[in-house]
């Protein structure tokens, strides 16, 4: 068995999640925001895998769930990029600051 304890995986996932969150909330470029969201999703994936291995009844369900997540994330990234491109066609910018039409 590996000697790396669960808490380390969780710590890694936490750091990754925080980096992703920070990026998602602060970056101006919409592409980077999307990438940051991917980071957060991956942090979740790490958690799923880690718990799947270290839980009281280890099994494969967590890891299979991860595969689902990756698939969904890919789809989501595709949709997100599509929206971004559609937006880009209307307003030639990828800066998140200028995308404030929700106010209206």
């Amino acid at each position, binding site marked *: 068995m590996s000697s790396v304890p669960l808490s380390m995986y969780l710590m890694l996932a936490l750091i990754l999640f925080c980096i992703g969150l920070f990026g*998602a909330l602060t970056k101006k470029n919409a592409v980077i*925001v999307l990438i940051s969201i991917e980071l957060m999703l991956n942090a979740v994936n790490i958690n799923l895998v880690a718990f799947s291995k270290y839980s009281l009844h280890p099994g494969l369900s967590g890891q299979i769930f991860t595969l689902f997540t990756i698939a969904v994330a890919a789809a989501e990234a595709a949709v997100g990029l599509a929206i971004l491109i559609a937006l880009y066609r209307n307003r030639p910018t990828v800066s*998140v600051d200028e*995308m*404030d039409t929700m*106010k*209206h």
Partner: protein
Amino acid sequence: MLQNAWLIPLFPLLSFIVLTAFRRHTGRLAAVIGLAATGASLLMALMVFAEQWQGNSFKAEITWLEIGDKIITMGYEVNPLNALMLVIVTLVSFLVHLYSKGYMEGDSRISVFYAYLGLFTFAMLGLVLSPNLLQVYIFWELVGLGSFLLIGYYYFKPEAKAAAKKAFIMTRIGDVGLFIGIILLFWQTGSFEYDEIFKAVANQEISQTMITLTALLVFVGAIGKSGQLPLHTWLPDAMEGPTPVSALIHAATMVAAGVYLVASAFPLFEASQTALTTVAAVGGATAIFAASIGLMQKDIKRVLAYSTVSQLGYMMLALGSAGYTAGIFHLTTHAFFKALLFLAAGSVIHAVHTQNIEEMGGLWKKLRLTGPLFLIGALAISGFPLLSGFFSKDEILAAVYADGRYGLFVLALIAAFMTSFYMFRLFFMVFSGQPRSKQDGVHESGWTMTLPMIVLGVLAVVAGYVNTPWFGTFLNDYLAQGPVELAHEHHGPLWIPIAATTVSLLGILLAYLMYAKKSLSRDWLSRSFPSVSDIIYNKWFVDEAYEATFIKGTKAASCGGTLIDRYIVEGAAEGTVSAVQLLAKSGNKVQDGKVQTYGTVVILGLAVIFAVVALTGGYFS
């Protein structure tokens, strides 16, 4: 007959309804309808009186309203006092109806006038027949309404409008006193009925303070209606109405209502010495106060108005001095000679088209009938021997003297002097000497106007003989059958009538010297005491004082209230609105449309929730 007494007020009411409903179509018929109605009432009243004279009383009631276990009734009652009043009211009203036919000739709203007269008469008759205080109050207010409508009959005149308003409001102030008095009596005795209340008073079921309080409150109502101090100011202003109306108001209805109320609630007053003293004092003060104002008025009707106030003061003085019969007696005689004086004054005004006595003069030869009749009235009111006023005034003075109110007795004597002086000042200025202004086409009035005056003139002479120390005290014996225990008849010392006569003759003599003979200068008073005459001429500045205090005060309170409403109440509401708007605006700022800001807020919120849960151990624990 007695059980049909309820029909008496209904005839005038019917006349009111018919004339109001068909006011466009009646035209000249209006007078006939009015006369027929009051004539029928008069006949019935006479029959009722005749039957009552034999000692029959009658009372009938129906349930009007049930509240819980209390039953409030309405009905009518015939007793000696109100049988007499019925006759006086219907008689004077009938004569006034007749007189108005001539006086109001050519007025385009004649049917409205007769309708109002009918309503007024109805209200007064209803008041007189009432067996309980609630019903009295109801008709009491209706009487006020009738006088209000009639005073404001010339609605387009600003003075008439002001006078009508004033009459209603001033009497309303008194009415509120009566209102409270009635309610308090109800809670003390459990009834509005005169009988029940008197029984409770007699059995001492009510505390002495309560008796005094309620009696005084009832008296406040009488003060308002009968124009006593300090609520007298409406009565002279009420002269804005047509002259026949003044006769009706001053002789038979409205102002008589106050005296009648005190008389019919007399057992209540009798139970409280304080109340009696107050009534006597207010009456005495009013008598001399109003007489003093009457000395200097220039308007023929206003002089008569102040004399009414003064004479009503006399009646109150009599009632307050336990002179029940004396008060009623004077009410009766006064009804006749004051109605006569007003109708005669109306006849004069009708002839010369002015009310200012400075512009009259020398009318004795031109108004062959009005002049002597006015003289009869003036002599009667001055207490000239053997005329009706002489007997009733003498009775009052005797009662006051017997009651031991010597101060008031002296006041009453002075007032008597003033009365005869100003009445004859009026007489001489109007009828003697030479015309002081151009008088064209002055002629005597027609028979519809002179006939009522003649009837009243006869009554003003003979009415006194119903109660004299020499020929018999019919009135006293008659009233003694009523609910009021008449202790004894005051036959004061012989010097009282002599003194009263002397005083009144002195007044007439003085007036003669000043205004007919002109051997005394007319304006010695205003020259020697300018301030005194100024005060009297301006009616003691009572109106001005009320204007400065109550009216200004109410207006100020009203304006202050408006300001409070606009700035404080509305301000608070506006403040709340703007506070909400401010909150909304600051909330609006957070909504900048950027997803990242929303996300940040969400995350921070989540963090706060976690922190709270971590620190407190959770809400649900």
